[in-house]
C-alpha cells in the first residue's frame, strides 16, 4: 500500500527545505555564487553522464569528418584506377579498395558529409516548420487547431518509405541529370514533408500543457501581448521535448537517407554517401564483405551516437528527475 504521493511529499518537502536557507545555498559542485538556471542544472547533470561524453565524442568526430575530410585522408575518393579493383587492405589504404578501384577508407570519410548534411538540414527544417505549426495549433486552439491537426494527421498517415520513394521517384528519377545541390535539397524536402507532423505534435502537446500554467496567466494579467507570451514564456519552456526529439530524429534521418540512396532514389554518384556505398556493395557481398561492413559500421555508430545523445539530454532535462 505504498503511497507515491506521500513519499514524493516527503522528498518535495526535503527538496523545498534543502533550498530554503536564509542564504541561497552554493551550487552543488562547490562553486561560488554563480546562479544556476534549469539549463545550467541540466548541463551539470550531462557532464556527469558517461553516455554524454561517448556520444559527444563520436558526434564531434563525425562533424569534423564532414567539414574537413582532408584531415583524415589524403586520397581522392573518386580516383578509381581499374587495376586496384577489390584490392585488399594495405598500409596505404586501411580499408582496401572497392569494386571500382577507389580507396574505401576515403570514400567512407567523404561520405560523412553528405549523410550528415542531409540529416542536419532535414532536422532543422522539420523542427522549425513542425514546431511553428505546433505552436500555432496549440496556442490558438479552436478551429485553427482542429484544421491543422487534421492536416497533420493526413501527412502522418502517409507511410514514410513509400511516400519518400514516390516523391523522390517523381522529382528525382534514376537517370535524371540534376546537380548535386538540387538532389540534396529534394531529399531534404521529401524527408521534411513526411516528418513534420511528429514535430508538430510534440510542440503542440507541450504548448497545450503549458498554456494554462500560472505564470502564463500572470503574464496576461500584466498585460503581455500574445507575441510576448509565445516568445518569452511559451517557447523557452516548450522547446525541451522538441529538442530532445530532434537529436534522435537526426540519427533516424541518417538512416533514412542511407535507405533512400540504397534504393536509388536518394543521393547518387558522384556524391559520396554511406547509403550509396551500401547499395553498391550488394553484388559483392560474398567476395568482399568489407564493402558493406565499413560504411554500415559508420552508419550504425553515427545513428547510435545521436540517439544516445538524445537520451542523455532527455534525462538531464527531465524535470521530474530533479
Amino acid at each position: 500500500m505504498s503511497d507515491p504521493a506521500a513519499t514524493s511529499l516527503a522528498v518535495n518537502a526535503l527538496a523545498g527545505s534543502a533550498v530554503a536557507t536564509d542564504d541561497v545555498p552554493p551550487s552543488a559542485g562547490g562553486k561560488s555564487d554563480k546562479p544556476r538556471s534549469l539549463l545550467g542544472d541540466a548541463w551539470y547533470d550531462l557532464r556527469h553522464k558517461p553516455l554524454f561524453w561517448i556520444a559527444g565524442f563520436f558526434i564531434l568526430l563525425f562533424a569534423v569528418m564532414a567539414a574537413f575530410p582532408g584531415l583524415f585522408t589524403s586520397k581522392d575518393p573518386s580516383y578509381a584506377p581499374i587495376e586496384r579493383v577489390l584490392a585488399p587492405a594495405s598500409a596505404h589504404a586501411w580499408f582496401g579498395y572497392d569494386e571500382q578501384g577507389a580507396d574505401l577508407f576515403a570514400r567512407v570519410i567523404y561520405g560523412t558529409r553528405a549523410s550528415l548534411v542531409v540529416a542536419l538540414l532535414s532536422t532543422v527544417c522539420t523542427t522549425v516548420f513542425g514546431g511553428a505549426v505546433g505552436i500555432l495549433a496549440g496556442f490558438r486552439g479552436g478551429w485553427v487547431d482542429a484544421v491543422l491537426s487534421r492536416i497533420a494527421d493526413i501527412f502522418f498517415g502517409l507511410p514514410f518509405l513509400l511516400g519518400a520513394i514516390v516523391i523522390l521517384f517523381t522529382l528525382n528519377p534514376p537517370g535524371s541529370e540534376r546537380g548535386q545541390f538540387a538532389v540534396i535539397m529534394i531529399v531534404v524536402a521529401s524527408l521534411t514533408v513526411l516528418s513534420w507532423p511528429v514535430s508538430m505534435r510534440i510542440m503542440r502537446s507541450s504548448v497545450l500543457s503549458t498554456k494554462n500554467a500560472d505564470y502564463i496567466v500572470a503574464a496576461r494579467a500584466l498585460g503581455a501581448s500574445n507575441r510576448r507570451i509565445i516568445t518569452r514564456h511559451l517557447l523557452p519552456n516548450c522547446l525541451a521535448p522538441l529538442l530532445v526529439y530532434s537529436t534522435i530524429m537526426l540519427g533516424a534521418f541518417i538512416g533514412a537517407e542511407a535507405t533512400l540512396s540504397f534504393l536509388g532514389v536518394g543521393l547518387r554518384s558522384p556524391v559520396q554517401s554511406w547509403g550509396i556505398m551500401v547499395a553498391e556493395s550488394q553484388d559483392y557481398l560474398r567476395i568482399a564483405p568489407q564493402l558493406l561492413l565499413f560504411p554500415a559500421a559508420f552508419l550504425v555508430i553515427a545513428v547510435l551516437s545521436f540517439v544516445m545523445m538524445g537520451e542523455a539530454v532527455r534525462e538531464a532535462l527531465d524535470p521530474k528527475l530533479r
Partner: protein
Amino acid sequence: MSTNVTVSDLPYATDGKPVGRLLEVDDLHVEFHTRDGVAKVINGVTYHVDAGETLAVLGESGSGKSVTAQTIMGILDTPPGFVTGGQVRFHGQDMLKMTEEERRKIRANGIAMVFQDALSALNPVYTVGFQIGEQFRIRQGLSRRDAKKRSIEMLDQVKIPNARQRISEFPHQFSGGMRQRVMIAMSLALDPEVLIADEPTTALDVTVQAQIMDLLAELQRERHMGMILITHDLGVVADVADRIAVMYAGRIVEHANVYDLYAKPGHPYTVGLLNSIPRIDEKGQDLNTIKGLPPNLIRIPSGCEFHPRCPRAQQVCVEKRPPLREVAPRRLSACHFAEEVLAGE
C-alpha cells in the same frame, strides 16, 4: 529473537478492544541520500501511542513528521531513504527487524494509514466496493458476496449515504470529503488497533474537514483505537488531540498534553508557532513571526537546530544540542531554557 507475532496473540480487554501501549517509536533515525548530500530527515524520534488516545504529531514541511509515519508503516522509499537506527515496536515487537511478510500481516490488521490525498491513494480503475472488499477477500478469505456485504457495512460506518448503490461507483465519482470517508473505510476494514492519519483533512474544505474529524473521533472512541494524527494545523490539534509531539528538523522538540501545551508552551518554536497563527477570534495587529526559514536538512545547524531562528538563542545553544528532557511533570522539551519559557519569561 522470535518475531512471529500474529495479531490474535495480543492482549485484549474482555470486550475484544485493544488496550495498553500499542505502538512505540524508539530513537528512530532516517537519512535520505540526495544528489546534494545526505539529509538527516529524522534524528532520534521517540513517541508512543496507547489504546484510546490521540497523539498529534505537529510540524511544518520538512520536520519529518510524515517520514516517521511512512517508516512505521514500512512504506518508506528505500532508496533514497534509509533507516539508520532505532526501533518501531508494535506490542513490544520491533517491526523494523521483521520480514516484509510479517510486517504485512501487521499492516491493515494492526496498523492502518489514512493519507492526505484520497484521489491518488485510491485506484481509479477499480470500484470502491472492489477496493474495500479486497481487504476482506485477501486477508480474511471471505467470499465475494460476504466481502461485498462487509464493504457496504463499512461505508455505512463512515456515514456515506446510499451505501448499497455507491459501492459500485468509482473514486472520481465521489466528492473530496466522500473520498476521504472511503479511504477511512478501507483502512478500518480489518479493525486495526492503531490508525495513522497523515494530514487527512488538509486538502478539504473547512466544513468538510469538521465532518471528517468528527467521524474520526467517533470511530476512534467506538473502537478504542490509538490514533496518530499528523498535521500542521494548530486548530485541528487543539480540537482532537490528547497529547502533542512538536517536531522540528527531524526531532521532537516538545511533548506535552494538549491543555498544557496551549496554555504554557515549553519551547521557543512552539511559542513562535502559537503566536504566528492568525486567529478567528481576534482581529490582529501584526503577527509575531518566526524569523528565517526552515533548516536545510543536509546542513542542520550546530547545537540546537532552532537556534538561527530563536529569539532566546545564546552561545550554549550554538554549541550544545539540547536533549529532550523532562522539564515539568509529564512534559518534555528540548531547550536549554525550557524552564524560563514555561514560566513565560
